[in-house]
């Protein structure tokens, strides 16, 4: 049993699963925004990054880890809501590149302001979990208390989002507002509020992702910390289908595992190359995503 757990393949599986859960969680936050407002939010990494700085760096001297996490998530909610109201709302009904360009501008501004205030030097965020690998028979398993924490936290957030959409009245309204805004407005759903709520939720999910990434002993928090995660998260969301939360999570996990094998058996530089290849091939084969039923569309 022991040599199995510490074997190269199992190590890659475990490490890849940990990464993949992060990609999947971030892809979920992209899907939440896309479904509610039809915007691919290019500042989806930068907004949570800013919230994480606000919580984890500003208050780290005064408070312990968990209160800082709470402050970050609340800051994320606030940033998401305000952004939707101020920057995104004027752009509904405009050509589709307008929100893309505005959110790219927001990404530049947030990263530059964060770097101006906190510099580009990585900040360590101390999590209460050790990132030393568990041992089995004197050999390390590719799993630590910290990666268990990452996986559990991500799964809890995913389950929470799923429960919110499936079992609550607000969740029903959110789905209705995304699917048929006109009809739901007639039925008394406050569609505008639902759009804002969609952004609030998604930035919250993004903030949890960023905290998990930044708490990792080996990365730390930098203004650009989410650029790479954004690329992988977008690839996961596009492969799974930008409309499908389940697809985003599953393809995030699968991509995480595949890329871990690529990095281990080929070369670290090939990871992003293979990720791009996966994206190109999957868009050729299933343009609307692996997990969405194909729909024809005429306007």
């Amino acid at each position, binding site marked *: 049993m022991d040599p199995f757990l510490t074997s190269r393949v199992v190590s890659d599986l475990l490490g890849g699963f940990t990464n993949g859960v992060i990609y999947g969680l971030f892809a979920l936050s992209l899907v939440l925004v896309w479904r509610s407002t039809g915007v*691919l939010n*290019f500042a989806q990494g930068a907004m949570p990054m800013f919230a994480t700085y606000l919580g984890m760096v500003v208050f780290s001297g005064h408070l312990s880890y968990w209160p800082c996490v709470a402050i970050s998530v609340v800051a994320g909610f606030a940033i998401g809501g305000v952004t939707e109201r101020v*920057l995104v709302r*004027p*752009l509904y009904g*405009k*050509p*589709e*590149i*307008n929100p*893309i*360009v*505005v959110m*790219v*501008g*927001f*990404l*530049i*501004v947030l*990263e*530059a*302001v964060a*770097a*101006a*205030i*906190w*510099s580009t030097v990585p900040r360590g965020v101390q999590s209460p979990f050790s990132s030393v690998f568990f041992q089995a028979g004197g050999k390390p398993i590719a799993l630590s208390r910290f990666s268990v924490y990452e996986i559990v936290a991500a799964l809890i957030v995913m389950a929470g989002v799923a429960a919110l959409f499936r079992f609550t009245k607000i969740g029903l309204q959110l789905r209705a507002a995304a699917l048929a805004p006109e009809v739901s407005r007639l039925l008394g759903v406050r569609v505008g509020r639902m759009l804002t709520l969609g952004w609030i939720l998604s930035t919250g999910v993004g903030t949890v992702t960023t905290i998990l990434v930044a708490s990792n002993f080996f990365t730390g928090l930098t203004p650009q910390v989410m*650029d*790479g995660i*954004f*690329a992988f998260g*977008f*690839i996961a969301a*596009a492969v799974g289908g*930008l409309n499908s939360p389940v697809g985003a999570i599953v393809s995030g996990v699968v991509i995480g595992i595949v890329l871990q094998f690529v990095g281990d058996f080929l*070369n670290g*530089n*090939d*990871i*992003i*190359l293979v*990720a*791009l290849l996966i*994206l*190109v*091939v999957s*868009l*050729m084969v299933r*343009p*609307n995503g692996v997990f969405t039923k194909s729909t024809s*569309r*005429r*306007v």
Partner: protein
Amino acid sequence: MRTRDGLVRGAVTIALAALAVLASLLAAPSPRDSLAWAITGAVAVVSASIMTSPRVRRAHPATRRASMTVLCVDATVVATYFFSAPTNFDLAIGAAMSIVLLGLSFLTGASGQISLGNGAFMGVGAFTMAIWANHHATTPIVVTLLIALFSGALVGVLLGLPATRLRGPYLAGMTLAFAVAFGAIVSSFNSWTGGDAGLQLPRAATPPGWLAHFFSPSTPLLVANTMWLADLSIVVTGVAFFFMANLFASRTGRAMRLVRDNEVAAELVGISLARTRVIAFIVSSAYAALGGALWTLVNNSVSPSTYSFALSITILSLIVIGGIGTIPGALIGGIIYAYSASVISWITAQTGLNAQGNLASQLNGIIFGGLLILTMIFAPMGIAGAARHLWSRRRR
């Protein structure tokens, strides 16, 4: 067929006129030389009169565009004679950038899509230029530039084929992934690209022999070389703008604008949406690669860190501020790029900021990002669009 003849004739005209101007200026021991001034003046007067003649205006739009380009190239080449070497260097860099911006402007203006990876496509052209020059040092510059252009088009096909078939932001997301990945791609082909260190050109680009001996012996080598590079960039930019202006006005260009404005109508009149979008993307990548190749030539070297994700974002900001979907917007963006660094360091000096501090080093991002948001919300067509709007209001 007739338009194609017009294109070739126009391109040849520009190249010849520019070379005539160049030769006349380089031959002149001083700007007061009467022969040089006579030739430049004649070229300017002839092209201006062709441009404004009512018959040409009405019946030969391609000729009109050609003479307009000749006039602009002529004037700028004359100006390089008076500029200092650093100004000429900035001018060459800015001219190459305006080619890249023109490609992106065309992509959006023609198909309503956007690319966040044009910095990486510049990198493709830049590395192709350097790799080719290192293996075949004797190839003429123009041929190498064309090879770089085709390499960009090729990568554009690979990425554009899947993404452009879809609606929505897939192309933007995919080009972003390409831009983020570019550094790793360069590293994984490090036997060709030199890895993180990049490549040097085997020898500096110097004026060809027949031109070089026109220079008066007292001209310092650096001044002569920089001027030659600036003039070369300007001529290439002129040709690129001329072709693009014709493409915008051609049947293909009109089809593309219809795709952008009304997809259903476009399909009804028999235009293939996917094909049109892919072509627009390929043109945009090829132009980006051409700009990158010129950068390699001007810098005499190429480094992967230049072609980071940040450059792609800068390119997007510049064209949005200049006026996305317009031709003058690309020129405005190129000028902004050439001189923004000096303006920002001037602002830093005026406000007494610590030049090595965090804020000063991020000022570029804050200003460009802020302008990007403001432009898109208040004047989506940028400076060029706003100017056109004011102009048409005054004429009414």
